[in-house]
């Protein structure tokens, strides 16, 4: 996988929600378990957490024909090509790796939570105890060692596969063609294309917590593309204007200086 533009495909139509990936992720990344409670769902922990970087979401869904379906979706970092999190990260903790994925320099993270809010998929999580933010790095160190990410390795049904972008996209589209109906490929058409691509059995809008049209938030664009440069332009511009004023008009003199002493 060395120096490859990689893509992980999550084929939800092959997922049995065995959650091997959820455990494998915790094991490889040495993340502790949380003492949870049953809250009326198999989905547990109920949401992604700073120590849960991937989560199988369980969803009971009745389609338009009245057919009941139990939808499973492995949630986690989508590894955007135009990643809002990388854009907003002040310390360079989030960065693009040579695989096109979004890596994490954990030692550089300052826990500012900018990524947590900026992410269009709502993925990164902040841990109060370490005051750092966490998310999947697609097992960057494993990729370096030419190994599959832990989740992919653990998947028994072939719902998770990984490879170079072109091949994986081709496979994903072939699978969608095979499935027919509402099946679709999710991930290649926004945020510059994600490095995690879904093969979805239903339309994206059907799935819980999955944005139908994810994009870089407008606030991030205003912030980073407008205000950020303008802060410099503003300060610099004003300073320049002041200098010009000083040179052209000179300092403002006190009018009556007769009585003034020293």
């Amino acid at each position: 996988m060395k120096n490859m533009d990689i893509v992980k495909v999550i084929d939800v139509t092959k997922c049995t929600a065995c959650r091997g990936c959820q455990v494998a992720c915790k094991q490889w990344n040495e993340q502790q378990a949380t003492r949870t409670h049953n809250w009326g769902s198999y989905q547990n922990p109920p949401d992604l957490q700073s120590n849960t970087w991937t989560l199988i979401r369980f969803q009971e869904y009745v389609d338009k024909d009245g057919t009941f379906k139990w939808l499973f979706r492995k949630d986690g970092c989508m590894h955007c090509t135009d990643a809002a999190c990388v854009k907003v990260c002040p310390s360079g903790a989030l960065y693009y790796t040579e695989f096109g994925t979004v890596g994490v320099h954990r030692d550089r993270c300052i826990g500012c939570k900018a990524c947590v809010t900026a992410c269009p998929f709502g993925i990164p999580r902040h841990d109060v105890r370490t005051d750092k933010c966490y998310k999947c790095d697609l097992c960057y160190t494993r990729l370096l060692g030419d190994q599959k990410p832990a989740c992919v390795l653990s998947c028994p049904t072939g719902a998770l596969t990984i490879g170079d972008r072109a091949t994986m996209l081709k496979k994903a589209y072939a699978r969608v063609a095979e499935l027919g109906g509402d099946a679709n490929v999710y991930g290649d058409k926004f945020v510059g294309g994600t490095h995690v691509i879904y093969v979805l059995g239903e339309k994206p809008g059907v799935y819980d917590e999955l944005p139908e049209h994810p994009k870089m938030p407008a606030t991030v664009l205003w912030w980073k593309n407008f205000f950020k440069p303008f802060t410099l332009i503003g300060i610099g511009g004003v300073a320049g204007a002041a200098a010009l004023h000083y040179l052209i008009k000179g300092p403002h003199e006190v009018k009556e200086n007769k009585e003034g002493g020293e």
Partner: protein
Amino acid sequence: MTNHYIDLKNSDVILIMGSNAAEHHPLAFKWILRAKEKNGARIIHVDPRYTRTSARCDYHVPLRSGTDIAFLGGMINYIISNEKHFHDYVVNYTNASFLVNPDFSFDNGLFSGYDAEKRKYSKDTWTFQMDASGIPLKDPTLTDPRCVFQLMKQHYSRYTLDKVSSITGVSKENLTRVYAEYSATGVPDKAGTECYALGWTQHTVGVQNIRSMAIIQLLLGNMGIAGGGINALRGEPNVQGSTDHCILYGNLPGYLKMPLASLDTLEKYLEKCTPKCKDPQSANYYINYPNFYVSWLKALYGETATPETEFGYQWSPKLDDGKAYSQLHLFDRMYEGKIKGLFAYGTDPAVSSPNSLKTRKALEKLDFLVCANIFDNETSSFWFGPGVDPKQVKTECFLLPAAATMEKEGSQSNSGRWVQWKYKAADPPEDAISCGDIQIRLMDAIKALYAKEGGPNAESILNLKWDYKDRDGNMDVLKVAKQINGHWTADVEIDDKGVKKQFKKGDLVPTFGMLKADGTTACGNWIMSGSFGADGENKMAKRGKDDPTGLGLYPNWSFAWPVNRRIIYNRASCDVNGKPYNPKRKLLEWTGDKWVGDVPDGPWPPMADKEKGKYPFIMKADGVGSLFGPAMADGPFPEHYEPLEGPLTKNPLSGQLNNPAIEIFKADVDQVANASEKFPYVCTTYSCTEHWCSGALTRWQLWLLEMQPELYVEIGEALAKEKGIKNGQKVKVSSARGEVKCVAMVTKRFVPFTVEGQTVHQVGLPFNYGWLFPEDGGDSTNFLTPSVGDANTFCPEFKAFMVNVSKVQERTL
């Protein structure tokens, strides 16, 4: 499994019924998905609850727990009345054409020969009519009213769509949909398979559930073929291996029969156990029974097993006639105070046995309890469990630290009968040793005590061959494995298909075909014979990835019993001339002088050769598959009976509400409430992917616990609404025997059934929790379940009983 996991990919229709394959066999499930992807196979899930398996099937059909025979009986009726059966196969390879004893009858739910007092059948009339030479009379036209086919047709004609729908709660549309799709495999080039697990076995009609499917598979010609068969999915509990090595009380290793007290000589025992058949075309392979049994005795008693000592037959333990010794009986007698001590290795009966109250009370009546486990569990700690006053418990409890599976070398048998050798990955921690070592040390001490002090049946102990240690005194697992495989006890010369072969004393027996009843061979488990080569090669450790047939047989990967046969009854995949029925999936073919493909069920030519040819089902005395199965305790044809506890007061099919051949336990805690207003909902229990069995191992694994943290009850939305129960709320589930508190999981995945015109709700709970850990995780679901089991195996009825569900106060301190 008659077939094996990988073979599931060769199927065209896969019926998953009585199994939650995706959740409990997540790795094996990929082969089911493979069938869907590569063959476009239909995957059908029939189950009371929509599960993670249903989510990956083409469709799910909800069925009321405990009505599988009604469902399958309806399918038999559909197949026969629509002539969907594979005619040639049925005529040649099953006993469909056999004429049944004229005195055999079935009336109002009872077969002939029933003794109501003993709750037992006399099987005198469950026989075939014989000709003068002792061969069953047959009618190959299948039209004789006394032939099996006609009797069966008549029996299942009662299972009409209306009737079946009314019993099972399955809509008629769904019934015909499944019946039509599945019976479409009754043609030569299609294969249908069935996957089941505890969803079928854990019923008072458990064995007959499976029998019903076996009948369907025989009718459709699906037995013995690639992508067919009837497949029990066994898993990590090593049910396959432990059953092969006689975990059931009535068995000896390799499914030999435990001697009965009345069979007081070896001769009588062998006479009784060796099946006879006068038909020269039937191989009747069990004619070799004496070879297997005497070799077993030689393995047991070594040098002291001689013809003079009846090879030690008198020393070996025997069952009292008419008595059963299942776990249900064990705890029943323990509850009566008749059992003094219990060894519970790798098991947690305080959680996993039915009627936990009874089980836990029974443990209090023991003098001693020895547990060997990798963690403490609710059984070894029962004496300080909820509601137990340690001061009042006299039982002396021991917990021996045992090595976990990855901490020891040895073999593991998967469902496909593959016996795979594995190596130790790590040393056990601290003082933990393998259960084998515990046994060796224990038996050494017992033998020493007997040698010193003597005692009753001292010969049984003292003559026991017991040399399984290495130089350091630890268990030598290879020695055990080789003893299981078998060896010669003398120098011999064998005539193997015309070739003379010399073997020395101590040489390993390469196949069970060479075992002898004269004491020249010793074999711990005949079906495992051949797991080593004569040269000592450990075939279980083979890891060859070649697949010459392309069917995924992988003959050089590990060893599959018997004799590395990957699909049993495989001769039935060919017609009477040995030509494969389905040339696309050629499992076996007769080339005129030999079989090519899988290891055949015997070397004989196909049955069209009237001289040397044999019928395909060689382990059956008459050589054919049993549509009529007189070996069953509860009838030669499966018949629908209601579970011991159900919602109905009357069986819609007959006057016999419950299985007439089941044993009813009568302790004060064995309360039953059938069709009671107090307990109006059908309940079933199951496991979840995240936990394993009683959870005694997995609950300590915090990553798993995080995903499934505590006991829950799954309730359909309609029932929850009726009871005012909200998702995530704490509720109480109670039965006539006890109650548990748990979290309500309100779901669309349980739908109400319409049964005999009434709405019947069903709920379900996992059985993976116990009071010991985690603290607030809930206690055993088996407080609810009844102590009653299958008529043949006594496998407990965990899957269908009646409960009530009610709200309790929200979680308080």
